[in-house]
C-alpha cells in the first residue's frame, strides 16, 4: 500500500529496490506490481511510513504479548480479544493455538467469521470460542455465489449447528444497497434468524465507503464506486421488519 500524502519524495525507495520496480519521476511515485516481489525493503527504508505491506508473519507468543497488554481493560469491562480477518478460519491451526493460549489466561475470545469452513474445522475450534460474530450476507443461494464466490449452504448449516449446540452468537448483516437490502432478503434473513434455537443479537451494518481508500492504495479498482450508504430512514425500516420477527436488533456493532 502506498500513502501518497505521506510521501516526501526522497527517492530512497527507488534506490533500494533490487527489482527496479519503483520509479520516482518528479512528483509521481509508481510501483510496477509485476516486478515487485514483496521483499519489504522499500517499506523499511521509507522513513515517512508511506509504504506498507499489509500482513506480516507472527508467532502465537508475539500475538499473545500484544493481547495481554490490555488485560486490565478486559478485567474492568468484561471484554476480551476478537479474532477477525479476512477470514480467520483459513488459518485454522494458528487460530486454534491462539484461542487456547487466550483461554489459558482466561481472556474472553470472539471470532469474527463468514462461516465458510468445514464443520470439522469449526468443531475443533468451538470449545475455545466464547462468542461467534457470524456474517449473514444473502439468503438466496441462487445469487449468493455471484457476490461471494461460493454457495451459502455450508454457511447456513454451520450456523444452525453452532446455535443448536448453545453457542453465543451475534449475527452481522451488512446492508448493501442494491445487493441485499431488498425486502425479500431482509424478511428471509429475519425468518431464518428467528428460527435459530439461540441467538444473542443481530447487528445490521450499514454499508460505508471506507474500503475505497484502501483500494486506491493498492492500485485496485473499487467495485461499487456509485453506491451510497443506506439512509437513516431505510435502516429504520429494515430494523422494523426484523424486529417484527422478535429479534434483538442493533444498528452497527
Amino acid at each position: 500500500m502506498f500513502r501518497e500524502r505521506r510521501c516526501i519524495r526522497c527517492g530512497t525507495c527507488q534506490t533500494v529496490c533490487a527489482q527496479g520496480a519503483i520509479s520516482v519521476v518528479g512528483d509521481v511515485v509508481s510501483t510496477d506490481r509485476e516486478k515487485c516481489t514483496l521483499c519489504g525493503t522499500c517499506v523499511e527504508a521509507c522513513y515517512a511510513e508511506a509504504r506498507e505491506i499489509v500482513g506480516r508473519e507472527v508467532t502465537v507468543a508475539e500475538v499473545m504479548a500484544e493481547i495481554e497488554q490490555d488485560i486490565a481493560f478486559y478485567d474492568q469491562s468484561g471484554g476480551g480479544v476478537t479474532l477477525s480477518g479476512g477470514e480467520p478460519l483459513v488459518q485454522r491451526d494458528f487460530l486454534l493455538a491462539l484461542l487456547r493460549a487466550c483461554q489459558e489466561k482466561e481472556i474472553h475470545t470472539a471470532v469474527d467469521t463468514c462461516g465458510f469452513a468445514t464443520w470439522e474445522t469449526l468443531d475443533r475450534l468451538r470449545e475455545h470460542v466464547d462468542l461467534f460474530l457470524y456474517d449473514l450476507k444473502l439468503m438466496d443461494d441462487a445469487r449468493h455465489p455471484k457476490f461471494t464466490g461460493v454457495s451459502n449452504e455450508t454457511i447456513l448449516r454451520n450456523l444452525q449447528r453452532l446455535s443448536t449446540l448453545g453457542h453465543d452468537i451475534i449475527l452481522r448483516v451488512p446492508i448493501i444497497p442494491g445487493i441485499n437490502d431488498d425486502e425479500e432478503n431482509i424478511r428471509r434473513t429475519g425468518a431464518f434468524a428467528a428460527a435459530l434455537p439461540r441467538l444473542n443479537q443481530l447487528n445490521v451494518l450499514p454499508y460505508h465507503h471506507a474500503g475505497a481508500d484502501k483500494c486506491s492504495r493498492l492500485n485496485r479498482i473499487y467495485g461499487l464506486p456509485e453506491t451510497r450508504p443506506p439512509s437513516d430512514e431505510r435502516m429504520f425500516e429494515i430494523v422494523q421488519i426484523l424486529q417484527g420477527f422478535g429479534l434483538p436488533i442493533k444498528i452497527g456493532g
Partner: protein
Amino acid sequence: MTMSQRVARLRQQSLDARPTISTERAELMTEFYRQDLGLVSAPVRRALAFQYLMEHKTICINDGELIVGEKGPAPKATPTYPELCCHSLEDLDILNSREKISFDVSPEARKVYEETIIPFWRGKTMRELIFQEMTEEWKAAYEAGIFTEFMEQRSPGHCVLDDKIYKKGFLDFKRDIQRSLDSLDYLNDPDAYDKQEELKAMDICADALIRFAERHAEKALELAQQEADPQRKRELERIAEVCSYVPAHAPRDLWEALQYYWFVHLGVTTELNPWDSFNPGRLDQHLYPFFNPPLSPPVGGMKGGEEGDHKGAPLPRQQAEELLQCFWIKFNNQPAPPKVGVTAAESSTYTDFAQINLGGLKEDGADGVNELTFLLLDVVEEMRLLQPSASIQVSKKSPDRFIKRAGRIIRTGFGQPSVFNADLVVQELVRQGKSLADARNGGTSGCVETGAFGKENNNLSGYFNMPKVLEITLHNGVDPRTGKKIGLETGDPTQFETFEQLFEAYRKQLHYFVDIKVRGNNVVERLYARYIPAPFLSLLIDDCIASGKDYHDGGARYDTTYIQGVGVGTMADALTALKYHVFDRKTLTMAELLAALGDDFVGYERTRQLLLNKTPKYGNDDDYADDVMVAVFDAYFDAIDGRPTTKGGTYRINLLPTTVHVYFGSVIGATPDGRRAANPLSEGISPVQGSDRRGPTAVVKSVAKMDHVRTGGTLLNQKFTPQLLGDDGGLDNLVHLIRTFFKLDGHHIQFNVVDAATLRAAQQNPEQYRDLIVRVAGYSDYFCDLGQVLQDEIIARTEHQAF
C-alpha cells in the same frame, strides 16, 4: 433542570460583560499607603489596608441578583494590585489592544495610572523587589525560559477552603483569635510579639469583612426602599437580612451559606491576587446539611423536619437550584487579574481556576457521592460557564452512575468536569505526611493540584522547562538561542559513548537549574512573609490562628511548595530518539542529529521522518519509550522532592502546564523527537501531540507507568470525537477507561470532545463559535480566546476515533 428567567438574564449579563480594568482598588490602595501610619507592623499595615478597601470600595448589587458582591465595581471590572505588580502605560496599552485575553482600559483609567498609580508605586512593588533580589544566574535562566516565577505578579495561592465557615461565624473566629492572643507566652516565646501583631491583623480583617457585608445590607435596604416590584423588594430585604447575619454568624440556611462563602471569596481576592483565586472545595459535602428536607427522602416518611444535622427552614428544590445557579454566575464575573509578559504567556486565560470538587470520600472514608453531587452536576451542565470549573472525584466506592452522569456532560464538548482519582489523592497526601482525616477532606484545585483543603498552603512556585535543560545539555551548557553559557559544562555530547552518560549530564544540568530556582524561591518566600503577609487569608486556613503565624510564613498546618514540571512527553520522545538512534541502533551520530536540529530540519526531511516515525514513542504502551519517561520523571522527582522550604515545609513536584507549553516551546529549537523549532511542547503528562497511535488504552497504559502517587498532581488530556460517546455503549466505555486508569493509579484525566473540523471552522470564523469551550490544560476556555499556536496544538492532539 432549567434556568429561571432571572438566572438566564444574569447569565447573559455575565457572558456579555466585557473584562475591563478597574482602577478602584489601585486608587484606594494608593490613598491608603499615602497615609503616614508611623511604625506599624507589616501584618497590621496590610490588615488596615484591607479594611480600607472593604470600607471604601463600591458596593455592587446587580439587578435580580440573589447572591451579591463583585471583586470590582461591576461584573468583570477587574481590579489591579499595584503593590505586587504595577502595570506600566505600555502594559495597559497591550492589555487594551491585544487580540487574546484583553481588558478594556478606558482613557480615564489610563490617566489614573499615569498621574497617580505609577508615580506612587514605581520602586515600591513586590515585583521589582523580587527581580532586584534574584541573582544573575536566576535572571539568565528566567530570561532563557528555563523556569517561570509565579510570584512575580501574583501572590502565593492555590488555596482551598474547608468546612469551617459553615460551622463558625467571624465572631467565632474573633473569639479564637482572642484565645490565641491570651495564650501568648511573652516570657518564653521569642516570637510572641510577632504573633501578637499577626493576630491583631487577623482581628482587624475579620471586622473588615463583617463591615463589608453590612455595607451590602445597607445598600440592599436602600434599593428595597426604591423598589416598586413587591417580589424584588422582598428579595432585597432578604438579601439585607442575609448580609447582616453572615459572615458574623455561622449560616443558618443555604442562602446564607452561599453568600457567606462568596464574601470570603471576595475578601481573599481583594486582599491580594493569589493564584487560583479561592475555592469552596468540596461543595457537595459542605452544603449537604443545608438541604431541608434532606435531599434523600427519609426512610418511612415524607416529612424532613429537623432530623439529624439538617439546618434551616424547608427549602423548595427549585429555590435551591436557583440559588446555586446564581452562585455559579458570581464566579464567572471575576476574570483573573490581568497578566503581562511571561506570566500572561504561561497562563493565557480569563479563568481564575476555582475548581469545585464533587464526590470523593468523607472523612470517615465512606463514599461522598450524594444527591447534592448530582444536583451540582446539573448546575454545571445547565449553566455551561467558563467559571467556576468543576471536577468529579472518583473513588472505588463511587457508583458508576456518578461517572456516567459526568460523561453525559463531557460528551457535550464542554470540557468539564475533569476526572480525578480520589483514592490516589488521599494516598498522595498521606505520603506527604498529612493525617488520614485531612487527606480525605482534601481534593484537587487549580488544574490538578492536590491539597489538604483548609489546612494547607500548597503553593505553586513556577513552571520548569525540562526540554530546555536537555537542549542546554546537548550544547554543553550553552543556550543555542542566545549563544550564552547559562548552564554547566557537562561535556561535549558528541563524545558521549553511552546513553547513561548523556542522561547523567542532563541530571547534573537539571540539578543546577533546580538549585537556582529553589534559591530564588527561598528568597521570594521571605519577601512575601516579611513585606506582604495575608492576614485575612490566614484566618481562614488552619492552623494560622492557633500558631499566630501568617499563611505566607508557615502558619498553615501543612506547607508545601511545588515546582511544576513541563514537557514530560517531549522529553520522553526526545531522549528515546537519542537512545534508539544514536546509541542503540547507531542510525545517526550525535553530530548528524545535532546538525539536523541546528538547521531546524531544513534539508533533513528524511531525518525528521525517521525521528517522527521510526522511533519508539511514549503513549503507545511500548516499554522502550515508557522506561525513558519513567527515568525523566525520576530525575525530576529526585531533584526536587523532599527539599526544605523556608516556611518549615517541603518541596514536591507536580506536572501540569496551563498554557506554558506554548511559551516554553517558543524558546527551544528543534528537538530530537522530530519537533520543529519554537513549536509547543507536549502538555501535562500527555504524549506528544499526534504520537499516540494505538488508542486511548495504550495511552493510559503508558501514562500509568509513572508513579503518580509521588506527585501532587499530574495532568492527562485525551481528545475524543463526539461519536465515540454518542450512545450508552460509548458512555460505558468511558467509565471503563476511567476505572482502569485509576485502577492503575493514574491521578487525573480530562476529555476534549470536539471534532477537528469544528475546531478548524472555529479558527476560520471565530465570531460564529464564540461559545465554543474546549479543554486546554486543567481548565476549559473559549477556543476563540486562545492564541493561534495553542489552537493549532489542540487540533493536533491526537483525535481517537475508536476505543
